[in-house]
C-alpha cells in the first residue's frame, strides 16, 4: 500500500481568497453603492428595487440564490484569509487559535447563508 503523503491545505484557502478577491474587485463597489447608498437614499434606481417581493423572487431563483451565496461566502473567505495573514503584521501571533477564529468565522457565515437560502425555498 502506498503511503499517503501529507498535503498542505493552503491551496484551498488561497483559492477561496483569490476567488473572493476577484469577485469583490469586480462587483464589490457597485454592490455597496446599490444596496447601501442608491436604494436607501432612493437614488437612480426604482423605489421598489429591493422590495420584499423582488428580493424574495430573486433569492428563490436558482441563479439569484447562487449569486447571493457566492457573494456572501466568497467575500467572507477572502476577508478571513487576508485578516489572518495580516495578524503577524500588527503583532498578533497567527497561531491555531487565530486560524480557527478567522476561517471558522468564514465557515460559520457560509453555513448560515446556506441555511437561510434553503429556508427561503425554491
Amino acid at each position, binding site marked *: 500500500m502506498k503511503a499517503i503523503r501529507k498535503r498542505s491545505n493552503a491551496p484551498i484557502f488561497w483559492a477561496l481568497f483569490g476567488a*473572493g*478577491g*476577484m469577485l*469583490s*474587485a*469586480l*462587483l*464589490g*463597489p*457597485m*454592490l*455597496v*453603492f*446599490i*444596496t*447601501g*447608498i442608491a*436604494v*436607501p*437614499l432612493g437614488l437612480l*434606481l*426604482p423605489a*421598489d*428595487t*429591493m422590495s*420584499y417581493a*423582488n*428580493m*424574495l423572487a*430573486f*433569492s428563490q431563483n436558482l441563479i439569484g440564490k447562487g449569486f*447571493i451565496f457566492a*457573494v*456572501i461566502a466568497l*467575500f*467572507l473567505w*477572502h*476577508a*478571513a484569509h*487576508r*485578516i489572518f*495573514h*495580516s495578524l503577524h*503584521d*500588527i*503583532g498578533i501571533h497567527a497561531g491555531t487559535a487565530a486560524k480557527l477564529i478567522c476561517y471558522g468565522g468564514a465557515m460559520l*457565515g457560509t453555513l*448560515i*447563508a446556506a441555511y*437561510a*437560502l434553503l*429556508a*427561503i425555498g425554491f
Partner: protein
Amino acid sequence: MNKRRPYVRSMDGWWRKNPFFVEYMIHEGTALFVAAYAGILLNGLLHLSRGEAAWNAWLDGLKNPWYVAFHMLALVAIGYHTYTWFKIMPRTMPPVIVGGKRLADGAITGGGLAVAAAASLALLAAVWGMAR
C-alpha cells in the same frame, strides 16, 4: 522565571515608517470592510428568510445615516481594493506571454480595471432591468 531573556524587537508602528508598508497596510485593511459588508448582507439574508416584516425592518435600518456613512466609507475602501487588486495582479498571476513577449504590467492592470468597470455597469443595468 526563564533565565534567558532574548531580545525581541518591538513591532510598534513598524509599518508607519515606510510609505510602501503604509500603502500595504491600507490595502490589506480593506478586508475589514469586505468582511463587514458581507456581514450586513448576511444579516439581510436572514431577515429575508424570516418574512416581509423582518425584511422591511432591515431595509428601513439601512436608511440610518450611520449605515449610509458606513457604506460610503466601504465604497471607497472596496473601490481601493479593486484598484490594488489589479495593480498587484502582474505579480500575483503567472507571466502571460503574447507573441514571445511578456505582457506589460500596465496592460494587465488596465485590462483588469476595464473588466471591473464593465462588470459593474452590467450589474447596475441588470439590477435596473430586473427592478422595473
